[in-house]
């Protein structure tokens, strides 16, 4: 057996490869991204892997493969499932031939997301089985089972790890023989074409399948009943199970425990065994009270004299992550065990350290150019999802809205319609443009809405760790393909004014924005400059302290993390500076210079 230190996402990828996955598609999104990257990196050569343009496209690619009898995996973060929900809801009725796993990674906290939605609830909504691993090593085994269950029941299955499983590493035994991907063959059959009548019949079949699957899950190794003493029991799922085990051991507690690794369909027989004879139950989970509600429902239906506590009753925090501490406290109160809380010494006031655009990030220059060009004009700046959401921070303060992928472009149109005296700008990154920006631009052109689109083209999907996209000319199969040109796309859909400029040439950048703003209808400026993480940095700039007058204009205007105060004057931290030169163009006394 080969033992490896694997991140949860890598373990899932290794498990999928071992299970004979043949087609993998996805769209990057924290905390899911490394799964698809790992399949590509460890591809034995017979797996097709792609970053799709968005989650909907990815799910449909995977569905096509699964209908052809090939095991497929589609990966995304939880909000990506909202984008992919249209095909998924229908696919639940159609079913699959080859096993198909839809990985949607949830993000309690949230740490890197817009929402704290719970994919386990989505599973109930769509009538789909869901697997919920509690550790990376468990995820490795569970993903393989997910493919088996999918094929056995002819249904896509959801797989939902959470951030601490995705981004936790563990020593994992990679064992045994790999199954080879099946050879695909699409057999024509009316059952692949959704019609109302077919949906009705499928609905009946799904209803009949749920109890069978629930019974199957009651005997599944991922759902575990651990005996213990007393009339109180604790249930948990996902990573909260790991916290619970640790809390129980720290407290030296003993009670009956139930671990739920598949919350839908709910393993009722096992849960009833757990509830049998208990007076009180505490449920430890994150996001939505899924296990808690299932137990309440079951206890109600069976008239069991048991009280159930959890998120709904305020015994477990209703938002954000659980921790060993929070679980330990809740368990101690529930089991009436006293423990000493560690009192920490009062530390000195700590500096707040929110994330910021990197030193040398070209987005800083782009935001600054638009800010300068729009000075004195009543403007709204619609932002979007990506590193550039960080343009909202002071001193740039250039993101007035952020909703979801691609929304900035269309919200800018609604704001303009509601407030016609307002000039609206929409910022979108290159990857987001391809993912869900284009339809918004077409909408504006078609409806003749005045707006200026700012495309921040840094030649990569930066926020999630530099994945290729349709504009980069590289695929996950290592092929070089034609780069899809953003200016050509914009021209083709009827944008009359399309300007491309390097944002680090500040004067030209400001002039381009002014020119675009003056245009009626839709205009666009494409700021092209690669992400600093994908190119070699230039030599750092330095401050001539004889010339620096200490006005701090550079700091006040652009807030680059490489600019620091040194007494009254400014200094550039050479290990952080990438030599982008933006500050040299802002200094009123030309005190910052590039080293020759």
């Amino acid at each position, binding site marked *: 057996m080969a*033992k490896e*230190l694997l*991140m949860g996402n890598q373990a899932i990828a290794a498990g999928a490869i071992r299970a004979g996955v043949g087609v993998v598609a996805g769209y990057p999104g*924290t*905390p899911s991204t490394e799964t698809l990257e790992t399949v590509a990196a460890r591809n034995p050569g017979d797996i097709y892997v792609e970053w799709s343009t968005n989650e909907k496209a990815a799910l449909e690619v995977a569905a096509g493969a699964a209908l052809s009898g090939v095991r497929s995996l589609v990966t995304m973060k939880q909000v990506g499932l909202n984008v992919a929900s249209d095909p998924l809801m229908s696919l639940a009725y159609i079913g699959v031939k080859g096993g198909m796993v839809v990985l949607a990674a949830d993000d309690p906290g949230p*740490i*890197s997301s817009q929402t704290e939605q719970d994919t386990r609830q989505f599973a109930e909504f769509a009538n789909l089985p869901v697997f919920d691993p509690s*550790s990376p*090593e468990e995820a490795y085994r569970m993903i393989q089972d997910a493919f088996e269950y999918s094929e056995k029941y002819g249904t896509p299955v959801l797989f939902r790890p959470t951030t*601490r*499983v995705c*981004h*936790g*590493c*563990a*020593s994992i035994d990679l064992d045994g023989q790999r199954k080879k991907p099946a050879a695909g063959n699409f057999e024509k059959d009316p059952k692949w074409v959704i019609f109302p009548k077919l949906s009705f019949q499928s609905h009946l079949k799904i209803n009949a399948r749920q109890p069978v699957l629930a019974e199957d899950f009651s005997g599944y190794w991922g759902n575990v009943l651990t005996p213990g003493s007393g009339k109180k029991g604790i249930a948990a799922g996902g*990573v909260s199970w*790991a*916290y619970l*085990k*640790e809390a129980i*051991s*720290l407290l030296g507690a003993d009670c009956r425990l139930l671990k739920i690794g598949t919350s839908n369909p709910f393993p009722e027989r096992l849960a009833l065994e757990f509830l049998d004879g208990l007076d009180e139950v505490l449920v430890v989970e994150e996001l939505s009270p899924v296990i808690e509600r299932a137990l309440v429902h079951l206890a109600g239906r069976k008239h069991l004299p048991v009280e159930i506590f959890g998120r709904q009753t305020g015994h477990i925090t209703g938002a954000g992550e659980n*921790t*060993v*501490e929070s679980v*330990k406290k809740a368990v101690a109160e529930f089991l009436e065990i006293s423990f000493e809380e*560690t009192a*920490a*010494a009062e*530390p*000195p006031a*700590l*500096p*707040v*350290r*929110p*994330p*910021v*655009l*990197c030193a040398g990030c070209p987005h800083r220059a782009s935001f600054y150019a638009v800010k300068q060009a729009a000075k004195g004009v009543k403007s709204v700046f619609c932002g979007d999802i990506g*590193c550039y959401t*960080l343009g909202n*921070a*002071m*001193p740039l303060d250039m993101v007035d809205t952020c909703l979801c992928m691609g929304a900035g472009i269309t919200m800018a149109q609604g704001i303009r319609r509601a407030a016609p005296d307002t000039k609206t700008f929409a910022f979108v990154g290159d990857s987001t443009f391809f993912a869900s920006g284009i339809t918004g631009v077409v909408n504006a052109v078609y409806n003749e809405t005045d707006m200026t689109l700012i495309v921040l083209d840094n030649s990569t999907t930066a*926020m999630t*760790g530099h994945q290729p996209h349709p504009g980069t000319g590289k695929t996950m199969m290592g092929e070089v393909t034609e780069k899809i040109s953003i200016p050509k796309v914009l021209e083709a859909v009827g944008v009359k004014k399309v300007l491309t400029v390097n944002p680090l040439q500040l004067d030209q950048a400001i002039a381009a924005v002014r020119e675009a703003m003056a245009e009626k209808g839709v205009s666009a400026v494409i700021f092209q400059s690669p992400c600093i993480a994908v190119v070699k940095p230039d030599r750092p700039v330095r401050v001539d302290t004889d010339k620096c007058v200490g006005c*701090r204009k550079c*700091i*006040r205007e652009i*807030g*680059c*993390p490489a*600019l*620091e*105060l040194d007494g009254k004057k400014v200094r550039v931290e*050479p*290990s952080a500076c990438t030599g982008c030169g933006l500050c040299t163009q802002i200094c009123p006394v030309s005190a910052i210079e590039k080293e020759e």
Partner: protein
Amino acid sequence: MKNCILAGVGGQGTVLASKLIAQTAMEAGKFARTAETIGMAQRGGSVVSHVRIGQTAEDVSSPMLPLGSADLLIGFEPAEAVRTLPYLKKGGAAVVSVKGVQPVTATLSGKSYDVSAMLSYLREQVPNLVEVDTEAICEACGSSKVANVALLGAAAACGALGLTVKEVEAALERRLPAKFLDMNRKALAQGAEAYQGANLK
């Protein structure tokens, strides 16, 4: 069981350092588990990595370690070390870079935060404190990217994790491309020396 917490600023290489520790432990036959900060915080925000080492998976079920349980705190930045100090157990050791990284919020307000106040607080609170001049080591090694390995050198040398400098070096050799190896070996050795220096005080 050994617990280690690494705290720094996004971009300082905490993730790689935590993986190296976990890998070194694994190669010594232990079970290792980590939890990382990946995502938006990596853009210059506060980041924390948790590393847990046990004999088996059952020894360390949670990926994040409980407060007051760390045998070792590795601070890549003084204020971040202070921020995560509640994780350190009584009598635990801390290896901290003395170089502050000023957040933009501090610079903007015109008031840099007081790095020396953080360091004196750490000296007060942690009897087993190893201060590492990562800036000097980076300069000596010719790269600003080796601060994490220098800190690992001091961390291994202080013995709090039961791993030796030699074992970490072997993990480095397996993981890093040959062209970066010499520079990192040097940083590791200099970090280990910083611990010896701290002992002499």
